[in-house]
């Protein structure tokens, strides 16, 4: 009898360690971490599990996810796009200046909102194309191209508006970001499409090959320049899409919108598992990374910690996640 229960206990612990091992070695470790973090903090954090808060969390996560999604494409090619934040700001003010009810170019027209959205997306893609062209045609390093892009486009947005915010946006426009369902649908559709593109399309394979070894890829008939260019265009496009959501949430076209999210974007993508050196990345990884980062943010807000503590804890949590990831790679014998 005692023996039996002993054996049972042993099999339970066995299964437990096996499960733990599987979790530790899973490529979705960050997701598991998020779950554990959530469960561990739930009892101490007032309001964390409340439905409104969960909805808030998910809605807040969407635009960041979109920006990070675009960044994933660029990171897979081994590049980086630092100009996403100013792309957000620039398309925000351009969209708002088209659609706003006070002195917008299309103020009051029924088609103002769709035109504004299209213009924003086109602008984002154009900024991405400029980055991409400088990188592929002029052979400039992505970091510097997009760093100067960050300065330039943000300067342009501020100059364009002469520092003023643009309010008075019609509901038809702000609903896209302000309404959680719509925003969720947009992000979900984009995410699913991107996932399909990365895993199933020719372009996706080319993207990874370019990131692994551009030289080999070129010699194997991959249009390396086109693929790289496309990655930056996609990144700009996604940033503009995020700008639609951010602008909708803030109900304002602002030349400084999203200026603080850059490190969050890259941090979330990397925590998810995408490599800064190219050739590795998944939409789901990025989603998990964003989820994790936003969950940490949200819980720290609810815990009513001071700004100092929040900043420090956030750093610590990022480091811890990365440490676990590194350990996982070592256990699995693969490279980070």
């Amino acid at each position, binding site marked *: 009898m005692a023996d039996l229960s002993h054996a049972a206990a042993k099999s339970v612990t066995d299964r437990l360690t096996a499960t733990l091992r599987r979790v530790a070695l899973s490529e979705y470790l960050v997701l598991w971490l998020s779950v554990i973090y959530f469960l561990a903090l739930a009892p101490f954090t007032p309001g964390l599990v409340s439905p409104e808060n969960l909805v808030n969390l998910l809605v807040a996560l969407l635009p960041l996810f979109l920006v990070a999604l675009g960044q994933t494409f660029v990171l897979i090619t081994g590049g980086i796009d630092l100009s996403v934040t100013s792309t957000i700001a620039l398309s925000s003010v351009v969209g708002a200046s088209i659609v706003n009810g006070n002195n917008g170019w299309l103020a009051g027209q029924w088609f103002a909102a769709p035109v504004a959205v299209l213009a924003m997306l086109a602008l984002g893609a154009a900024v991405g194309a400029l980055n991409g062209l400088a990188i592929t045609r002029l052979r400039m390093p992505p970091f*510097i191209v997009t760093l100067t892009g960050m300065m*330039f486009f943000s300067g342009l947005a501020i100059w364009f508006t002469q520092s003023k915010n643009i309010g008075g946006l019609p509901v038809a426009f702000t609903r896209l970001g302000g309404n959680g369902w719509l925003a969720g649908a947009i992000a979900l559709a984009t995410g699913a499409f991107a996932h399909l593109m990365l895993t199933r399309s020719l372009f996706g394979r080319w993207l990874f090959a370019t990131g692994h070894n551009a030289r080999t890829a070129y010699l194997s008939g991959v249009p390396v320049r086109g693929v790289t260019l496309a990655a930056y265009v996609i990144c700009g496009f996604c940033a503009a899409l995020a700008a639609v959501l951010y602008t909708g949430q803030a109900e304002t076209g602002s030349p400084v919108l999203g200026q603080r999210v850059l*490190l969050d974007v890259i*941090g979330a993508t990397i925590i998810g598992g995408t490599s800064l050196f190219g050739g590795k990345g998944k939409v789901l990884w990025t989603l998990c990374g964003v989820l994790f980062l936003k969950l940490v943010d949200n819980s720290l807000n609810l815990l009513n910690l001071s*700004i100092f503590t929040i900043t*420090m804890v956030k750093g610590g949590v*990022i480091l811890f996640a990365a440490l676990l990831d590194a350990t996982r790679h070592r256990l699995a014998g693969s490279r980070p």
Partner: protein
Amino acid sequence: MKTSWWLERGLRQAPLVLFILILAIFGALAPKFIGVANLVNIGVQAAPAGIVAIGMTFVLLTAGVDLSVGAIMFVGAAVAGKMALNGAPLWLALTAMVGVGAGFGVVNALFITRLRVAAFIVTLALLFVGRGFALWLTQTRAMNLPDAFLQLGSARMAGMPLPLVLFGLVALLAQGVLGRTPFGRQVLAVGHNRESASQAGINTTYVLGAVYLLSGVCAALGGILALGQLGAVTPKFGENYEFKAIAAAVLGGTSLFGGRGAVLPGTVLGALLIQSVENGLVLLNADPYLYPLITSGIIFSAVLLDSVRSFLLERACRRKIRMEAAD
């Protein structure tokens, strides 16, 4: 034969040529710009970011990155400021600051070499931790420091402002280490490929660790120079220095993928270039809205020129199979 020699020479020195070009343009628009006093000014103002960028260059050469430099400056300044306000002598406060830099460097190094966490993440995390900690230390208040700090910034050595002298010394020393010591060469090897380097018998743990330590110390030194000019610590102290430093290094031709780059003239020239543009714009009393547009435009053109240059150089140096039999 002769012309191609000149062409190659010119191409090799392109960053310098560009720098002189920019000096000439601003000089023509604002004659005061090329006055000795102003040029010295540019040097002094470029010194803090320049020194940080020198440390960053070493890190970039190993294909790493150190995003924590700005936070290190802030924590160091906060600690030094607190000490100075509580009556500690200047040298002690400054030593503590360098100690903070070294400490952060060691933490970075430990995580990156021993625990094998990606440098980007480790230093990003330390950026958050550091800034949070320093904000707590200062309670987000500005701290006005004793005059001793300001005197440090305006002191002169051999007729030159101390910051400029220090900048020059650090640059020379760093270039010496990079170009003339085994360690420097090993940094380049590790940057090309960490695994190959370790197979070639290089102690990569040591090299990487040392590089982050260096970067931390350089950040602290840069912080000291910034304190010497400002005489105060504010909550924004050191903010965005990581980008400034990386920009200066990359502008000077250092690759973010490691293995390629130099402190002299490279990074130093990069830091001076950025500062010259800002300085020139103020002298021209340019419209503030145009600052970011012009600055980014000039940095962009500089890097564009550099990439055109390396492309042409590569072509000029393409391997030749047949000796020129004709002549």
